[in-house]
């Protein structure tokens, strides 16, 4: 089983852990139902679809409500520090959490005490904290977009908001930024750079560029990156190596986008519902 760690944009959502279910566009955890239209619930819904397709156990989740004050994130960090060493997961994917270097380090230290080291994937706020901590090499995959790649490439930036002006965000500069990120030890073993072209890279440079199919409006839709990370988490848990998992996740997400035929005003749930068909097309044809 694999687990996803993240937040729900509801300050009253309690700290919960355990397997998730999916029904009628709602993520189910315990007695609670959460819309999957953005954030970690969207990631989990995407991962769930892969598990269901392959008859694999559903993902487990560690979720807490946080609307940005960081209070929920800190309680989640503390819970993980106390509990995670006793758990057994093939992979752990970290998502929307308030970036905090000290808490990141405490959780990473606790993960180091697990009997079997899980594959670690970091996206969103936890990726920011991982980079800031100087321990990016503990991770198998980071999933930045081009702005976040610029942040990884900038040795001094503590957050993408401060990426210095001379580090350009243009997609055509991605190979250069990838090189800088590895040069400064600010990248995981694999990078999946999300954009119009998805790029899979490692310390040797660009491994694969995925350009087709392309759905330009997906860039504007909040949560499309969450779909990719969710698919990636599931494919990694199914045993695919980092490179393959990245390529599969990128392609399946794009195919779901084609099936959804979205406009920039569509919502991510409109794409998530096409994941089962895109999996079928990708793996059975």
């Amino acid at each position, binding site marked *: 089983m694999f687990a996803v760690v993240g*937040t*729900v*944009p509801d300050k009253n959502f309690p700290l919960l852990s355990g397997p998730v279910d999916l029904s009628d566009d709602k993520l189910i955890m315990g007695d609670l139902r959460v819309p999957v239209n*953005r*954030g*970690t619930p969207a990631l989990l819904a995407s991962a769930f679809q892969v598990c269901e397709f392959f008859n694999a156990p559903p993902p487990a989740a560690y979720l807490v409500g*946080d*609307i*940005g*004050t*960081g209070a*929920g*994130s800190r309680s989640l960090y503390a819970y993980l520090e106390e509990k995670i060493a006793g758990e057994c997961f093939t992979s752990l994917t970290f998502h*929307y*959490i*308030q*970036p*905090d*270097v*000290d808490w*990141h380090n405490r959780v990473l230290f606790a993960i180091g005490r697990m009997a079997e080291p899980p594959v670690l994937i970091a*996206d*969103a*706020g*936890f*990726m*920011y*904290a991982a980079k*800031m901590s100087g321990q990016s090499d503990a991770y198998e995959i980071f999933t930045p*977009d081009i*702005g*976040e790649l610029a*942040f990884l490439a900038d040795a*001094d*930036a*503590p*957050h*993408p*908001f*401060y*990426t*210095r*002006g001379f580090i350009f*965000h243009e997609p055509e500069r991605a190979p250069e930024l990838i090189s800088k990120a590895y040069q400064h030890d600010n990248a995981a073993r694999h990078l999946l750079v999300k954009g119009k072209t998805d790029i899979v890279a490692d310390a040797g440079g660009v491994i694969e560029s995925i350009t087709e199919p392309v759905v*330009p*409006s997906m*860039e*504007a*839709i*909040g*949560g*499309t*990156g969450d779909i990719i990370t969710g698919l990636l988490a599931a494919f990694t848990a199914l045993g695919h190596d980092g490179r393959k998992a990245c390529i599969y996740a990128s392609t399946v997400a794009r195919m779901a986008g084609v099936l959804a035929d979205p*406009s*920039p*005003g569509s*919502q991510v749930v409109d794409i998530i519902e096409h994941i089962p068909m895109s999996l079928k097309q990708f793996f059975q044809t």
Partner: protein
Amino acid sequence: MGLLAFFKKTKTTAAKTPNDRGILVFENTSEVIRAENLLKQHDRSIRVMGPPPEIRTGCDLVIEFPLIEGLDILRSLEAENISPLQVVPVTGPLLEPVNIFFTTDYGQFLMVQAANMKMTVDQTSLTVVNVSGGGCPDVPYLAAEMVGKRLDEAPSPRSIGHTLCGYALQLAYEEIMRKCSP
């Protein structure tokens, strides 16, 4: 250049040297945003900047201010129950926030990116249709509160956001407001 102009320039440059500036450090970004709103209302010469390395935690902002005005500024903040954790002089260069915008015009829809945040509006109805990017936990919350509302009805990210991602979204929001204003 005339002599008077030379002296004027020298004076202006000296006023901007780091030794004349201090920073206000707050517990969280929400406090920074509250303080910034208040001090700008009072026409204070302040800038929101990145903190120096020794006090960074990963998601923070500080307010740079003229040291000479420190007492007045603190009094203004205290009157509104806003208390900085620390007030320290600037001893080195501070990080400047990203200030470049990327705009994509899809025809009916317009997307503006500021740093790691993107906002998309329907240009015909001026409705916020999507918020994407970012990594802090207020991003999904801001999206939930803003998407589906007209720009003039949606809460501004500054008013309900808490993090640097929320602050970046505010910049995208302001740029969209500017581009969509008649």
